[in-house]
């Protein structure tokens, strides 16, 4: 896959992301309130664009350790990624090698994240007695940002994007999973 094609895809994906986010913000002021269907579709487009953006960035700079964002809660993502392989906009061989090389890198990154994650997941006994929850936690009337676990379920590593502080990524992690809980 040529570098220019990857760049074009990259630019296109970024543009779509920007358009989507502006649509998302515009829909908050719409009469009748946020439309769930529309918000869902916007978030799906944003997710596609983000995945392709990451994939094409990976192809551009393979040394930079990026990974396809893991969405453990998104049951639709794996078939999407599999079927994205013959995507006409990405030269197929290029995309395949990109995503194959991502896996080992992502495993290492996930492990780092998991450790960081676990620090937050300490048992209540280890938390300081100071009620930092009041000051820093979100108010109760806002929906919880943590997934409610079913019995027996483990907490997976958070998506890579949320662990990174990269400027480009902040655009993508902004509201994807936050859109729907707003309902």
């Amino acid at each position, binding site marked *: 896959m040529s570098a220019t094609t990857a760049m074009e895809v990259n630019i296109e994906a970024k543009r779509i992301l920007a358009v989507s986010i502006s649509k998302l913000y515009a829909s908050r002021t719409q009469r009748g309130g946020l439309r769930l269907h529309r918000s869902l579709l916007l978030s799906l*487009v944003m997710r596609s664009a983000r995945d392709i953006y990451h994939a094409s960035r990976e192809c551009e700079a393979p040394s930079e350790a990026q990974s396809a964002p893991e969405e453990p809660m998104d049951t639709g993502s794996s078939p999407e990624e599999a079927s994205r392989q013959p995507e006409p906009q990405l030269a197929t061989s290029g995309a395949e090698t990109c995503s194959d090389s991502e896996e080992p890198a992502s495993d290492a990154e996930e492990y780092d994240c998991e450790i960081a994650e676990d620090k937050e997941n300490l048992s209540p006994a280890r938390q300081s007695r100071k009620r930092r929850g009041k000051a820093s936690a979100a108010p109760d009337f806002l929906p919880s940002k943590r*997934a409610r676990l079913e019995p027996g379920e483990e907490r997976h590593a958070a998506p890579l994007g949320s662990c990174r502080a990269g400027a480009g990524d902040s655009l993508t992690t902004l509201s994807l999973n936050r859109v729907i809980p707003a309902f």
Partner: protein
Amino acid sequence: MAGPGGDMQWCFSQVKGAIDDDVAEADIISTVEFNHTGELLATGDKGGRVVIFQQEIENKNQPQFRSEYNVYSTFQSHEPEFDYLKSLEIEEKINKIRWLPQKNAAQFLLSTNDKTIKLWKISERDKRPEGYNLKEDDGRYKDPNSITSLQVPVLIPMDLMVEASPRRVFANAHTYHINSVSVNSDNETYLSADDLRINLWHLEITDRSFNIVDIKPANMEELTEVITAAEFHPHQCNTFVYSSSKGTIRLCDMRASALCDKHSKLFEEPENPSNRSFFSEIISSISDVKFSHNGRYMMTRDYLSVKIWDLNMENRPVETYQVHEYLRSKLCSLYENDCIFDKFECCWNGNDSVVMTGSYNNFFRMFDRGHRRDITLEASRENSKPMQVLKPRKVCTGGKRKKDEISVDSLDFNKKILHTAWHPQDNIIAVATTNNLYIFQDKVN
């Protein structure tokens, strides 16, 4: 396109609505529905009003008969409301109108906005009482001392007055926005569907409803699809279908269990991987689902196509018709101008041989299933001379544009036909542009 007795030739009949190019938002038509006999045609608009047209049937036996629809009743169905708890305005836009089959002299219809369904009774009054003992004719009370004799009030004819009164208000049952209402063939119950839930109501009972489908995940972050449309089977009162934003249709049997979360049939066509793009999910979202009149098929509309499904075959549709395939390469622009979110409806003709749906540039498309022919027609003021035959239109998809063809880039995406309706028996169609209602009929009617 051949119908019984020869080729169908569609002619302009009437157009309703303002000629003004400057469209008031409240006048935007949001739903169109014929009643079960086709005598009445109801429209709902963004301003919460319902306008009902009635067909004049006196001249039916004459040749060159023109079915004229004239205004029968106009009323304000819904008003804007405010949900104080969520600080949300509730739009008064009428999302759907569904007629009840006629049982007595009055007509009944269900109209719904995003949150509340109302049952309206439309009745005629052509007599009024006169000759009360205690009141004058103008309503003033008589002086009791002036009354010397007793009379029986009589009913005298008066000019026809059509009254619409709300008989039931079905409120507070939907957290999300209502997208469908469907009356059951049992004429006692109906369903209402929002993005995540479907409720079953009894027409007489307003203070409660049964939830029969609930696809809300425990964690909203896991949401992957929403309900986009739902409809009861035309004959089987236990069967209904609902479509999803993922392009699937689920058929449910209410006899199986109280909560129909588990479908009886799942209709889904595997996606063509070569068509994959950023916007695949959006364009596969189903915007409308309609059973055929005979109850053997159902039709779904997604952004680019119309699909006909045999209820006995779940793995793919039996027929697929491309409405405007030339838009596939324009999806990015259509996403930017929001057109990709447009929800087109579709409808069957009376004998299920032809299906119709709308497109852009005020074009609408008909697909003749038996003869495998399709036609594109346009609803415009330019073709609005009485009985003027509509000329088929063609969109040029590339290369040399022929005379009379229109190129894709010249299409006006602000002129969209989202709502169409076909008379249940005759070849008369109602096509809604942004704020006008066009009525066309087949020349050989």
